[in-house]
């Protein structure tokens, strides 16, 4: 049992924290918020090996454990970073790796390729098997028909991985296949996301793809999707932890400096105790992230996945609401840093399943 970081991990953590503190200026963040990511910073991250840290050596990286992922994303969260490392790295990259496409993965790790996963569909909520989009094979390749919802990073992606059904019906885990699509074949109307970044709705209206667009084995994509999303959920949870820490630091500072009724508001016992409860819950979130990181490659993965994402969702709500309340009016203004962090933290509950969704699945697993 050992909760200390290895020397390599600590070096990466220190380096990344320092880099982001310097590079992620207000201007860079604004750029990333509006345009999905900031090219310079993306290159900087790649150069530091941050993308490579998400993959094991056999896939061309030098990390890939749950703790590596947690470390990287906690720092990105702390900086309020917008860059789509989840989409390009863990979702897109993870699926490329599962399909053995080392050629493309190399470009991803080098920071030269952006990816997006077009999976969720309108009305599909968080159910990974609820895909109705179809891919029909004919002599010349594949024809895709269907709709995809809130495809994060699609407007900036060099390739989009699209899930579609080659057999079965929405809700089946069998029959899902993945396709690698050049976005130039699609019409993408970008829109902004709360907390920054870009996404698109995508309609496939008989889009044709060459035969080699198929990624991995036809009909067998569910397990790879599940594994990639589990790692993405760990990343998002760790990002949430970093956001919580940044918000806590901001709020603590505010409590010390803001005066009302003749004293710093941090002198008010009621705010002290509520802040203590916030701190306790953030420690719970930290342990939950550790639990998931430590079990991401074990049989207990899903139990911890559901427990962690449920807890993160609940704590995120508490942290957002209490920090805004303690700030008062300034907490709901766009200009102040808290707004950006609070929005990103709020959105954590809307990807890969919210607290209620994971609660129900935790109960089901425990009853099984």
């Amino acid at each position, binding site marked *: 049992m050992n909760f200390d970081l290895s020397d390599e991990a600590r070096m990466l953590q220190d380096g990344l924290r320092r880099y982001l503190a310097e590079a992620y200026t207000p201007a860079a963040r604004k750029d990333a918020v509006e345009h999905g990511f900031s090219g310079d910073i993306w290159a900087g991250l790649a150069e530091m090996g941050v993308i490579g840290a998400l993959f094991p050596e056999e896939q061309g990286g030098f990390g890939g454990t749950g703790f590596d992922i947690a470390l990287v994303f906690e720092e990105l969260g702390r900086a309020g970073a917008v860059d789509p490392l989840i989409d390009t790295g863990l979702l897109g990259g993870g699926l490329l790796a599962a399909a053995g496409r080392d050629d493309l993965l190399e470009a991803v790790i080098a920071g030269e390729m952006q990816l997006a996963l077009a999976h*969720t569909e*309108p*009305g*599909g*909520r*968080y*159910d990974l098997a*609820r895909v109705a989009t179809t891919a029909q094979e004919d002599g010349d390749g594949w024809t895709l028909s269907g709709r995809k*919802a*809130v495809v*994060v990073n699609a407007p900036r992606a060099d390739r989009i991985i699209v899930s579609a059904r080659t057999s079965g019906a929405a*809700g089946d885990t069998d029959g899902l296949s993945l396709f690698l699509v050049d976005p130039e074949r699609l019409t993408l109307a970008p*829109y*902004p*996301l*709360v907390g920054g970044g870009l*996404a698109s*709705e995508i309609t496939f209206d008989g889009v044709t793809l060459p035969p080699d667009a198929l990624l991995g084995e036809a009909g067998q994509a569910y397990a790879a999707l599940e594994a990639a999303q589990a790692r993405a959920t760990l990343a998002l949870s760790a990002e949430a932890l970093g956001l919580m820490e940044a918000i806590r630091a901001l709020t603590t500072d505010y409590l010390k400096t803001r*005066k*009302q*009724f*003749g004293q710093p508001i941090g002198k*008010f016992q*009621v*705010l002290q105790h509520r802040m203590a409860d916030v701190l306790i819950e953030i420690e719970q979130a930290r342990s939950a992230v550790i639990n998931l990181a430590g079990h991401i490659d074990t049989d207990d993965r899903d139990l911890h996945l559901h427990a962690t994402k449920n807890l993160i969702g609940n704590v995120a*709500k508490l942290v957002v*609401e209490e920090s*805004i*309340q303690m700030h*008062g*009016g300034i*907490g*709901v*203004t*766009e*200009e102040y840093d808290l*707004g950006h962090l*609070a*929005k990103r933290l*709020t*959105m954590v*509950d*809307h*990807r890969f399943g*919210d607290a*209620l969704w994971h*609660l*129900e699945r935790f109960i089901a697993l425990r009853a099984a």
Partner: protein
Amino acid sequence: MNLDYTDDQKAFRDEVRAFLDEKLPERLTEKGRGTRALTKADHEEWHAILNEKGWLAGNWPEAFGGAGFDAVQRHILEMEMTRAGAPRIVPFGIAMLGPVLQKFGSKEQQDHYLPRILNGDDWWCQGYSEPGAGSDLASLRCEAVRDGDHYVVNGQKTWTTLGQHANMIFCLVRTSKEGKPQEGISFLLIDMETPGVEVRPIVLIDGGAEVNEVWFSDVRVPVENLVGDENKGWTYAKYLLTHERTNIAGVGFASAGLDSLKRIARAEQDGDRKLIDNPHFAARMARIEIDLMAMATTNLRVVSAAAAGQAPGAESSMLKVKGTIIRQEINALTRTAVGPYAMPFQSEAVEGANEAPIGPDYAAKATGAYLNNRKLSIYGGSNEVQRTIIAKSMLEL
């Protein structure tokens, strides 16, 4: 005891419903439900319709052109308007300034300003909060120095809601630094066209810009714009705050929000069932509804006591706290209900907002409303201030 409306009250409710059926423009209710903001003209249109009926100022005595409704009638009117999706009556002139002028204003001020509020000649906004003086109003610093027939005002107000539409602002200003902080405050009416007044929007977390900073640089205000006595503004401000607390519980908003949430939960697919049939979702929603059913009755008890002439005490504070908690929980659960479609940033302030929304219509406002309504527990006396009031009135400490 009797929980039913009297026959007279039922008749009034029916009259309100008939009026709303006939006169409330569909265009305005659609805007309220959709993603588009009400414009200044929209508000003015609705005020004029109400004024024509004589119901714009339900809380004003008939002598001042109001409807002279009792608390139960006002409650019925508010509930029915909310249920019908009518725009909210902009409170600054009607609900806030009106009662102050009626109680403390000069005859000239009453004769001049009250009709202009009803007719829509003036759009008022409120100059109370300052940076550094949010819940702690007594510490405000914006100052007015007497100079002949004028006060010269310098300083800054903030959180001025809809100030961008206003031509007039009522302000608390410091006219003396002697004595206790609240003793040197005066209540001043300022024409926003006066040189030296500047309004700057504050962009909020949901992208909207409904609140403003108002800056005063050597703004000359005629002394006849002082309400009541110099340095007595604190008394008038407290009186105003009491009146602001009409409908403080927001039962109508909560009911409308809950109805909307239920519609969403019936529409959203959640695996093989509708979201409303997800027991964990249903449990959270039921707890809110059960809380709201009780609070609605607490509200009626306070309304009923007010109609019988009793002044509400700590009950207002209790309604404020519970009411904001319920409304914020409805906002939070609505955000949860729309699932991944909470993620697109769909603000009125963002270009292209008049395009079709991303995802289902009902998702467009969910995240913005959640974020924006965090303010409910902050403004109008934060919930922390309310809890202290409740404790003091109960513990007598």
